[in-house]
């Protein structure tokens, strides 16, 4: 039986001890003496969140298919255990072997959202690995970052030895082989970093120099050594039918994870091109998985996990060409066996309503629309092709089908936004409420209609057409939410409309971290030293600490958040080639200002640049 890293005494003291014991169904055990590379795969948040991450599970399975690699999992200890580990100097360990992370060859950290950055430092700190890459010794693990936030790795560049830009399936094998070759040749850590920089998609920050202009913008970003590539190119799998590394047996947590279900990834990328959406740009081109493979995969994963639910994962499920076939299969095959079928990101239309009425309890569920902006004008600016007519028609059909709850998601603070756009949110909610009373005769109504309006504040992200846009001040954001709130209060059916909004302080910090440069690392480090941790959790997020960190490091947050950038400026992430060209992004930024809509990838190719990957939607119907 495995021996745990933590004593019974500690485990009896902490909440949800099963987070730390490993040994779950389908977790992979190997003999450490029979592998060449030990990889600690970390999601820097609590176990239940990390275990819900699909990307991490794909890589875990893929790495462990290699006989010479043993990949184990690491998560952020929750705050209660964090405190005990610091007091008692217990090093952070991987779940499978329960052995210290410091003994591993690699520590891979998934960067899913900016607000996890202080937890990255927590993981390094608790692992007894130097926070700054430059201080690491020969025997320390190679710390590598990947995931969505790696598309602007600069604010955390000082903490990492390297980053992986793109989809992990592609060049990790080459990286492992280079690591083994370097070890066999007796090469140093520095030798390996250089060798890694030669692999497409691998970015080694220490091999690049940045200089700044007087105004604080970047003057130059250049390789520090001959042979280091100027650009780092995003890696992705072109053929998701042939090269997709399907998970056969996902790990099944003992405790209830946030996603306590089988996740079936049906496609990557999105054809829509919403101008605020980073995922819609960086995962281009859209690539669909083969429906027969998906059916087999669904069957296999349900069998191997025993999960009672399966969920489709994609940025926009309704755009998957064979959705009908897939969903009908899932219902016929599994619904009778008490397997729930969860269909997020479905556009509300006749098909969606029909399917949803089969798989969920209409009385208890609610419909979700994401118009993102309150007026058609602003929806044109952001290229969100959802019209009021479509929303009202969808809602009307849903009401007739028995639903009476609707969720609406919007963003405030989008580029070019006016007061009319904000008020439009209230007006749209009102029209939906009216639709209910128009479409459903009195005797068929089951209580009041409930329209839940939720707004978040817009954060410009790298590699989107809005990457140059300015953000607002905290008080401006609050003012915007008030405009919406007051306008909702003024509606006839205001009692059927509920409004909630996110706090603006997290948004501003997220904006800083999303578009920061290398100098931002000192702010993150300072905030961490002052106690910032679990910033993604409202219960532990403390903006006050961050404000002090900005002051103590003489960093002007406004420079990063408020400023609209010129398209001439060198942006911190410009050295990355993410597939979409800067020319395309600039054109889209201009089209946005002209309130002009760009057609989606299936309607017309807009020449974004992703075609050179040689696959996906760009070649549909051309083979």
């Amino acid at each position, binding site marked *: *039986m*495995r021996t*745990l890293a933590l004593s*019974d*005494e500690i*485990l*009896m003291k902490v909440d949800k*001890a*099963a987070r*730390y*014991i*490993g*040994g*779950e*169904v389908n977790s992979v055990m190997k003999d450490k003496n029979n592998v060449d590379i030990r990889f600690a795969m970390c999601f820097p948040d609590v176990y239940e969140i990390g275990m819900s991450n699909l990307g991490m599970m794909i890589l875990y399975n893929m790495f462990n298919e290699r006989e010479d690699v043993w990949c184990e999992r690491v998560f952020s200890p929750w705050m209660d255990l964090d405190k005990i580990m610091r007091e008692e100097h217990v090093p952070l360990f991987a779940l499978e072997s329960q052995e210290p992370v410091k003994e591993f060859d690699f520590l891979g950290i998934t960067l899913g959202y900016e607000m996890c950055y202080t937890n990255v430092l927590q993981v390094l700190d608790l692992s007894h690995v130097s926070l700054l890459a430059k201080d690491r010794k020969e025997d320390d693990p190679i710390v590598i970052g990947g995931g969505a936030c790696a598309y602007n790795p600069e604010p955390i560049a000082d903490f990492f030895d390297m980053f992986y830009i793109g989809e992990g399936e592609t060049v990790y094998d080459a990286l492992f082989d280079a690591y083994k070759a370097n070890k066999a040749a007796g090469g140093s850590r520095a030798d390996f970093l250089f060798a890694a920089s030669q692999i497409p998609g691998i970015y080694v920050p220490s091999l690049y120099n940045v200089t700044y202009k007087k105004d604080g913008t970047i003057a130059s970003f250049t390789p520090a050594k001959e042979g280091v590539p100027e650009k780092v190119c995003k890696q992705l799998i072109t053929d998701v039918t042939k090269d997709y590394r399907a998970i056969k047996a996902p790990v*099944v947590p*003992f*405790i*209830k994870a946030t996603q306590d279900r089988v996740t079936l990834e049906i496609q990557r990328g999105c054809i829509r091109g919403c101008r605020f959406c980073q995922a819609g740009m960086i995962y281009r081109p859209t690539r669909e998985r083969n429906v027969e493979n998906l059916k087999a995969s669904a069957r296999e994963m*349900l*069998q*191997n*996990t*025993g*999960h*009672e639910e399966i969920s489709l994962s994609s940025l926009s499920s309704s755009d998957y060409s064979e959705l009908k076939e897939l969903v009908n299969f899932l219902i016929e095959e599994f619904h009778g066996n*008490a397997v*729930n079928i969860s269909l997020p990101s479905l556009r509300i239309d006749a098909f969606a309503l029909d399917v949803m009425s089969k798989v*969920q*309890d209409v009385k*208890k569920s609610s419909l979700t629309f994401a118009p993102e902006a309150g007026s058609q004008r602003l929806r044109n600016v952001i290229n969100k092709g959802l019209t009021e007519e479509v929303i009202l028609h969808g809602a009307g059909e849903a009401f007739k089908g028995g639903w009476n709850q609707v969720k609406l998601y919007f963003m405030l603070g989008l580029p070019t936004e006016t007061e009319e756009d904000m008020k439009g949110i209230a007006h749209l909610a009102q029209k939906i409420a009216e639709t209910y009373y128009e479409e459903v005769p009195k005797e068929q109504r089951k209580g009041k209609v409930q329209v839940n309006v939720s707004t978040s504040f817009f954060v410009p992200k790298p590699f989107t057409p809005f990457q140059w846009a300015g953000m607002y001040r905290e008080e401006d954001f609050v003012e915007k939410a008030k405009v919406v709130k007051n306008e909702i209060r003024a509606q006839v059916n205001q009692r059927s409309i509920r409004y909630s909004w996110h706090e603006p302080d997290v948004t501003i910090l997220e904006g800083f971290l999303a578009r920061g440069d290398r100098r931002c690392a000192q702010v993150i480090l300072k905030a961490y030293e002052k106690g910032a941790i679990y910033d993604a959790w409202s219960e532990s997020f403390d903006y006050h600490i961050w404000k002090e960190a900005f002051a103590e490091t003489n960093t002007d947050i406004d420079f990063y958040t408020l400023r609209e950038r010129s398209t001439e400026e060198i942006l911190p992430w410009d050295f990355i080639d993410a597939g979409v060209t800067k020319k395309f992004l600039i054109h889209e930024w201009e089209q946005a200002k002209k309130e002009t809509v760009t057609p989606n990838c299936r309607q017309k190719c807009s020449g974004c640049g992703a075609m050179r990957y040689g696959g996906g939607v760009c070649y549909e119907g051309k083979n």
Partner: protein
Amino acid sequence: MKVRIKFSKEGPVKFVGHLDTMRYFQKAIRRANLPVAFSGGFSPHMIMSFAAPLGVGTESLGEYFDLELTETVPTSEITRRLDAVMVEGVRVISTRQVEDGKAGKAMSLVAAADYYVEFRPGKEPEISWKDKINDFLAQPEIKVMKKTKRSEKEIDIRPFIYKMELQGDKIFMMLASASANYTKPELVTDTFFAWLGAELPDFAYTIKRLEVYADKGTEDNHKFVTLESLGEEVE
């Protein structure tokens, strides 16, 4: 077909709580492809019932749950199929067919349970205690303060201690575990050592449950039988 399944839970999995252990078995039953019966409705659940919840941190060699199947499967095959999909530390020991209906429900049958209490290395108090167990039990009453949500009251736990003796270095106990009459091994152990005037440090001992019993006798004349023995093997 209603079956009673006996399993053990040892090692790191002792930190998996009762509700999560139930969830674990629900998924395991699906992996084992057993023809399990579901309740109706939009969120159907398996018709299963656990005998006695086990606290986090406690190991056990004798845990039980009842499960409703839609067709008859040989009990040895159920044991084999379910045991094949377990994790390290959990073993499926036996399967028995039991009578249908509420009266036969595992939870309502529970009357007593066996435990081992064992000191962790270096945590045993340095007093002579091993020969004092009989004196402890010879008391007409063993009064302890029992805290409830509303009040605190004094109760006598002596009637709930059916057996208590030294077995090697361990204390063996058979305690009442019915929903109305019950006491816990921690309470008995702490009370015993407090009676001896010894204060135990935190986490001084581990507890392992060994077996769970139903009572086929009367209040005055108990006849304890294991939950397993109430069922039959079916070919």
